[in-house]
């Protein structure tokens, strides 16, 4: 895990970006591609996030779900005023972006190891650039497993793209609530761990999703013999400044905008098992 974080102007002042493309995805989610209007922010790495500002409404943290040169891709789920405003933006609209913020997945440190990516719901968004980076470096890593859990078949993100990851990756998908047409797996994402092909003792794991899902996945991985120091999880707390000043994102001794969102399970476990911090 590296912690470059944003420095200087890009941390405090939003830089204008234009919506170059927008695609509606699973119900309530949209993937937007942003390109700089003038100068671009420093490069993002997989796992990092931006503060994206919908003018007149507010800004929220959004992970990068794609990095392509100066272009940033975000997948946003509409849950409240700011995310709804960003979700509704059409191509050509302008937003303000600050970043890059936070720690990344630290993929290069996993060179030579089997990779295990476990995503729940929209947790696949921050993991997508990691999978793309691993696929773009054949021979660099061991076996790549991508396990995806989704509420319903309709809620699956990037369905076409994830299908295309196979056969270079072992991609297993499970849903909680199948419809009549679903022929895939049914059950929680942890049930897929037995069917993935990785060496638990040495693999590097990358987990993102709702916290109960992260806890269940990490606990199962440890039971299978994984090293908690090599299980990277991405955590979320409400964020405002994203620069380590306001304290909104505090989790125990961590400020997650600065010390996270990606931390190892060694760090996360004691913090997530405490009821109130």
């Amino acid at each position, binding site marked *: 895990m590296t912690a470059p974080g944003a420095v200087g102007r890009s941390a405090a002042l939003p830089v204008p970006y234009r919506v170059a493309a927008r695609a509606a995805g699973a119900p*309530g989610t949209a993937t937007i591609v942003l390109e700089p209007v003038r100068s671009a922010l420093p490069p993002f790495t997989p796992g990092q996030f931006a503060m994206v500002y919908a003018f007149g409404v507010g800004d929220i943290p959004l*992970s990068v*779900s794609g990095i392509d040169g100066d272009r940033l891709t975000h*997948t946003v*789920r509409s*849950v409240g005023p700011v995310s709804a405003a960003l979700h509704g933006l059409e191509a050509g609209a302008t937003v303000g972006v600050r970043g890059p913020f936070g720690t990344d997945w630290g993929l290069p440190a996993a060179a030579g190891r089997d990779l295990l990516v476990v*995503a*729940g*719901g*929209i*947790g*696949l*968004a*921050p*993991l997508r650039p990691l999978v793309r980076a691993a696929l773009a470096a054949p021979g660099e890593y061991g076996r790549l497993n991508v396990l995806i*859990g*989704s*509420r319903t078949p309709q*809620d699956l993100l990037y369905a076409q793209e994830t299908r295309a990851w196979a056969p270079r990756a072992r991609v297993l998908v*499970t849903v*909680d609530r*199948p419809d*009549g047409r*679903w*022929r*895939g*797996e*049914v*059950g*929680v994402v*942890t*049930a897929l761990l*037995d*069917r993935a092909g990785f060496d638990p003792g040495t693999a590097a794991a990358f987990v*993102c*999703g*709702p*916290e*109960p*899902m992260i806890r*269940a996945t990490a606990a199962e991985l440890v039971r299978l013999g994984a090293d908690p120091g090599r299980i990277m999880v*991405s955590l*979320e707390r409400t964020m405002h400044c994203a620069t380590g000043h306001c304290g909104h994102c505090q989790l125990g001794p961590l400020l997650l905008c600065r010390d996270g969102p990606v931390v190892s399970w060694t760090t996360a476990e004691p913090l997530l098992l405490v009821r109130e911090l």
Partner: protein
Amino acid sequence: MTTSQHGFLGALPPAHRDRLAEFAHEVEIPAGARIFEEGGAADRFWIIRSGGAALDVHVPGRPPPVVETLGEGDLLGWSWLFEPYRWHLGAQARGRLRAAEFDAGRVRTACGQDPAFGLAVTGAVAAVIARRLKATRTRLLDLYAPPGAGAGGGDG
């Protein structure tokens, strides 16, 4: 039967794994076949070699919803170990299923005669039940639901 190390069999010490294998024979179940029905006599169980099975619940008036799928190495069926030895779910083969099929009555008798073997088998089956119970509870949280739509929620 090959004594595979992972899945259900992986939870058994080698000696008990070999003992259990004495009660098995290989079967092939065609795609789409019903393997057992809710309420039916639980006189057999299976360990899946390849292919998969879907567990479903009978709901009057509509096709049985699938509640869980099982794959390679998984134990299919545990109702045979507990009275009244009746299936509490239905099961259907997804694709062609190859499995080791066990005679439940003989395994139960062997468990009764050899307490160490019985304890090992019961412990391994209980571990499967515990994991499925945990998974069911986790799903009750409606894990991946958008915030506000369920008890769970959360984001990337």
